[in-house]
């Protein structure tokens, strides 16, 4: 077992999920409630990583981070080194790659919050921002958790983008999926099998959590039982 790769992967997935929560909550709010007529363009952009081959996404991210691009030069002047083939670069790419997995379930949950509850909050003098944290988020926390868990799981298993942007530097950018690929290339099938099994089990457990979260029976059983009595 390559513990170094496991540590890199977990660190990457955790950081990506945290950043996606910070970016994803406001973005999902905007997607759910904006009435802007060109909103669909933003929605399509957010969803792009769902359909694009990871190599394509990785290629553009690589070019955008490279020394030829203003963004790359800006980062270089700031950090003293470029983004490609670093852990930071990998985080940026992962955030973009997993964006739809965070934004879409959260936006769907926000959109299904009873409008009356939001309006009731306004009529009690509570600001939009405070309403967001006191009504919208608590009312859609299964969606928020789903977004969080899915972006974590999705980052665990990414391969193409990591290879394009991060390369294969042990302890820095070599993640589990790269490690497996490496072992197969080196005809080390038993090593690949162990790592693959770990990823399979972890992924299955995480997805089970997502589906369990979305089965409201666990959390609202008491609530519903009572409603039937009334």
């Amino acid at each position: 077992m390559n513990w170094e790769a496991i540590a890199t992967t977990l660190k990457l997935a955790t950081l990506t999920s945290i950043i996606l929560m910070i970016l994803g909550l406001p973005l999902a709010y905007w997607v759910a409630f904006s009435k802007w007529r060109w909103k669909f363009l933003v929605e399509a952009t957010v969803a792009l990583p769902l359909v694009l081959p990871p190599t394509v996404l990785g290629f553009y991210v690589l070019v955008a981070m490279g020394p030829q691009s203003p963004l790359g030069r800006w980062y270089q002047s700031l950090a003293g080194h470029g983004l490609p083939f670093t852990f930071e670069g990998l985080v940026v790419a992962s955030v973009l790659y997993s964006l739809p997995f965070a934004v879409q379930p959260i936006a769907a949950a926000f959109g299904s919050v009873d409008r009356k509850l939001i309006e009731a909050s306004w009529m009690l003098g509570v600001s939009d921002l405070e309403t967001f944290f006191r009504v919208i988020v608590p009312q859609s926390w299964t969606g928020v958790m789903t977004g969080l868990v899915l972006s974590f799981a999705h980052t665990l298993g990414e391969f193409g983008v990591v290879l394009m942007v991060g390369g294969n530097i042990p302890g820095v950018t070599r993640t589990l999926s790269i490690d497996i690929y490496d072992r197969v290339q080196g005809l080390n099938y038993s090593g690949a099998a162990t790592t693959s099994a770990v990823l399979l089990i972890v992924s299955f457990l995480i997805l089970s959590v997502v589906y369990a979260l979305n089965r409201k029976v666990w959390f609202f059983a008491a609530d519903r039982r009572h409603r039937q009595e009334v």
Partner: protein
Amino acid sequence: MLLIADIDKRFDGGPQVQASVRIPHGVSITILFGPSGAGKTTVLRCIAGLEKLTAGRIVFEGRDWTNLAPQKRPLGYLFQEYALFPHLRVRDNIGYGVKRQTGIVDRVAAKLKVHDLLDRWPSELSGGQQQRVALARALARGPRMLLLDEPLSALDAATRDHVRSELALLLRSLGIPAIVVTHDWVDALTLGDQMLVMSGGRVLQTGPPQEVFTRPQHREVAAAVGVETVVAGRVIRRDGGIAFLQVGSGGLAAADPGGDDVDFYVCIRGEDVTLEKGRAEQSSARNHLSGLVLEVVPAGVLTKVVVDAGFELVALVTRQAVEDLGLIKGSNIFAVFKASAVHLIPKS
């Protein structure tokens, strides 16, 4: 004026609501009455700031509210289904909009008799309890006016009568002006000081409820109202579930609603009144009032016959019946209706 609302609201490709609402100082409860789709709730939402006006203005106590955010308007809004926050206990629901909770939650809860429910979840409350909690939540913020959207429609019929009279008492005791949206004429008569009848996005008539019910100025109002006879009556005797009332110089029998009230609005729908030439020997109907025909006017497919039976009683009958009975102004006639067709609404 406490409130001046000149509302013009156009929905994309949808209906238009144009209504002018004036509430003078001192008017306690204003009823927005009309069938569903009349635009009543839109008017209420515009006053609350939940809908932006297409044109017009809203002025409250001399301040222009037209472009003011809903959060900035000191109003209490009661939603149709009460909209309690399901993830908060009753205590936190009531205290939701209160910045500094110096015992206000307990005081309001006690006033609305929900202090025993403070630790419950909204899903554990009955409809009537939910309504009181929602009212407590609106009141905790100290609003200058209450807006109630169909406050009784989420309740079943048995609960509704009880909650209605409680609500009437409560709204009067609060001393806060209120606008109540309803399509139920019993609500309008029980709760209202002033009433606006809306239909098709417009205000058709304004006045005290009893006057609007008895003297609808438009056919739409009469149709929306649906009750042709509304007169004041006083119980003179109660006997075996029947109340005998003095109404004008006449009298009638009605199903006794119980309670200690003596003064009522007597409401009779025109369709429930039968006209007869002679007095039937035996009939289950308790009321056989003799009277003079005052007026015979066409009302759609039916004809409206106004009879002076000691008070003005309206019957809606077919044109055929008018011809068969030879009804003209001045005819002698018996007006027949069951005690159960008389609806009594306490005046207090």
